[in-house]
């Protein structure tokens, strides 16, 4: 038989058999090197839990944004008084007038309706000793729920009569309803708002969103006429005007028309900036997109950094491991292990640890995400993708960072390895 002429390539079964034996052996490396294993697993688990939390958070910003846009209405636009979006709603300049509302309603085509909104903050709402702190008291014309696409869970909406008569009736936001009534039905009950008492006629569905610092559900709706007569608010100006169009196509076309109409009505010179802000769902998307892009970048960097830290821990521990295992490597080569076998062995050992670390980290990440969501900071819908993402990133980190130590081990000279240098 010929020693030299035989092909040294392994056949498929041989590769499969040898690789699976090496894999099986590397399963034992956990027991053989417990300290190394624990450190690598911890480091990777740390990175992968942050990766999971972060990707869960990002996953859910899209859920939140979709809801926001749906709530807002794709065919609606908001005009906010004042010149900057960053100022909180109450603190903005009062620049929108009754005339603005009428002219938009009459002069712009395809406007379905225009509803102004004026409100005040700073009054506690009280019912039988229970109170809701400082809800936003909104003054509205008839059909608040309909015009804001904000369904009622019970009772009825404000109607024209309420507004004409300045009736002391109110529709509660879900937060206020919960604070005052818990599971009881509030319809027909009397509540105190500041100095006046109001009869509850309806309850709004929960929206769960935030507007600045404030929860949008922490509000009560009363007739506009009642607001201006009972509370010290500016009766000639509005904070927000909501405009709804017949078709969503029209928004972009009429945005500029509304802008120039308002600039004309507000007598702004060419060099002056708008003293109002136009917000459509498109702009919400753009704004959220920028915000989310920044968030992704920042959180992504954080996750990548923590995974890299895990990777470097792995690389260092594996380099040390190779040094302390010269004899093992030497003897394996002496009995027939090839370079590739040694490389594969160390890569298996590494990936085993990183995948276990990634798994543990993924679980921790999901648990922490749920915990954070229970604090009400973000909503978590369980999704397997962040988990799979962090598992596969862990695997890749294992390969990348163990490659150098594995190659070092594989390239050791048999004799030098056996001598231990």
């Amino acid at each position: 038989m010929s020693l030299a002429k035989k092909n040294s390539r392994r056949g498929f079964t041989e590769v499969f058999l040898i690789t699976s034996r090496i894999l099986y052996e590397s399963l034992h490396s956990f027991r053989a090197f417990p300290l190394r294993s624990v450190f690598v697993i911890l480091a990777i688990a740390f990175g992968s839990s942050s990766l999971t939390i972060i990707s869960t958070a990002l996953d859910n910003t899209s859920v939140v944004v979709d809801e926001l846009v749906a709530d807002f209405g794709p065919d609606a636009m908001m005009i906010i008084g004042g010149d900057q979006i960053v100022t909180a709603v109450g603190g903005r300049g009062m620049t929108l007038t009754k005339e603005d509302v009428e002219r938009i309603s009459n002069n712009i085509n395809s406007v379905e309706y225009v509803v102004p909104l004026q409100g005040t903050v700073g009054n506690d709402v009280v019912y039988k000793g229970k109170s809701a702190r400082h809800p936003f008291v909104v003054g509205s014309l008839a059909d608040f729920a309909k015009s804001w696409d904000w369904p009622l869970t019970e009772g009825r909406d404000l109607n024209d009569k309420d507004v004409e008569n300045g009736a002391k009736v109110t529709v509660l936001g879900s937060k206020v309803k919960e604070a005052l009534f818990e599971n009881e039905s509030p319809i027909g009950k009397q509540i105190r708002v500041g100095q006046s008492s109001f009869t509850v006629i309806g309850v709004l569905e929960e929206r769960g969103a935030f507007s600045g610092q404030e929860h949008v559900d922490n509000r009560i709706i009363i007739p506009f006429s009642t607001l201006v007569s009972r509370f010290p608010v500016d009766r000639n100006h509005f904070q927000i005007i909501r405009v709804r169009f017949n078709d969503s196509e029209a928004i972009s076309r009429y945005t500029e028309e509304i802008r120039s109409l308002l600039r004309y009505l507000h007598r702004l010179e060419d060099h002056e900036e708008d003293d109002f802000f136009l917000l459509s769902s498109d702009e919400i998307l753009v704004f959220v997109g920028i915000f989310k892009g920044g968030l992704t970048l920042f959180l992504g960097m954080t996750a990548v950094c923590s995974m890299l830290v895990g990777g470097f821990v792995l690389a260092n521990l594996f380099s040390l491991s190779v040094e302390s295992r010269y004899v093992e490597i030497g003897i394996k080569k002496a009995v027939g292990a090839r370079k590739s076998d040694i490389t594969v062995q160390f890569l298996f050992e590494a990936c085993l640890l990183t995948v276990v670390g990634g798994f543990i980290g993924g679980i921790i990440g999901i648990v922490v995400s749920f915990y954070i969501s229970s604090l009400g900071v973000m909503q978590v819908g369980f999704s397997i993708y962040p988990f799979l993402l962090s598992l596969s990133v862990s695997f890749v980190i294992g390969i990348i960072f163990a490659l150098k130590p594995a190659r070092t081990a594989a390239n050791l000279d048999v004799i030098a390895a056996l001598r231990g240098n």
Partner: protein
Amino acid sequence: MAKEVIRLGGAELIIPQSTPKELIRLENIKRIFYQVASQDDDENVSAETKEKGLEILKGINMTINTGEFVALQGSSGSGKSTLLHILGLLDRPTVGSYFLEGEDVSKLSDDRLSIIRNQKLSFVFQSFYLIPYATALDNVLLPAQYNKKPLSAQKKRAEELLKQLGLGNRMHFKPSALSGGQQQRVAMARALLNDPEIIFADEPTGQLDSATSRDILNLFTEMNEMGRTIILVTHDSDTAASAKRIVLLQDGQIAGETLT
């Protein structure tokens, strides 16, 4: 002496082989070490030596036939281990040709050499070289990892070998729980696992007391009687006396031969 057995009808004819089968032939093997790795006498190494390298083996010519038990004997530093490593395909000669079973193996690829080591050669070293975190059985099974023979059969064989070597009740012990002699037996079981043609041993009794050494040497003699070729390196003439042929190595050259 290798014998050929021919069956003719019921009778057995034992014919002494006229021409012994050549297993190994070395032609003018030289081994020169170029990098003198930070040795204590670094400063004593002249610049000339550094450039030309250290010639450790200075043209070795020898032939070894199948079934021989050869001892390479020589004082420390004479190049015995270096020669053994070349013979065992763990190292390559700088100059010269090495014919194993008639084929020049000095220029084969690393992977090819791995296959030959796995299937035809095996090693027993002075310091055993067992993997500390593996059991005796797993150490013996190490060569089985790198070929496609079914594992169950190899495992059975490993267990039988350990039993034959008196370690039947220590199979699942880690090396640290075994005596030196027991560890060397594990190493010998590992060397026998793939039924090699040649067993190389480098001072296999160097760390053992004299009684244990005798046991181990007897094992080599037994293996040789079963037809395996044994090449044993030692500085000690008593140990060398177990072999049938002693090759004396001196300063990288063959200085003489004795048949016992």
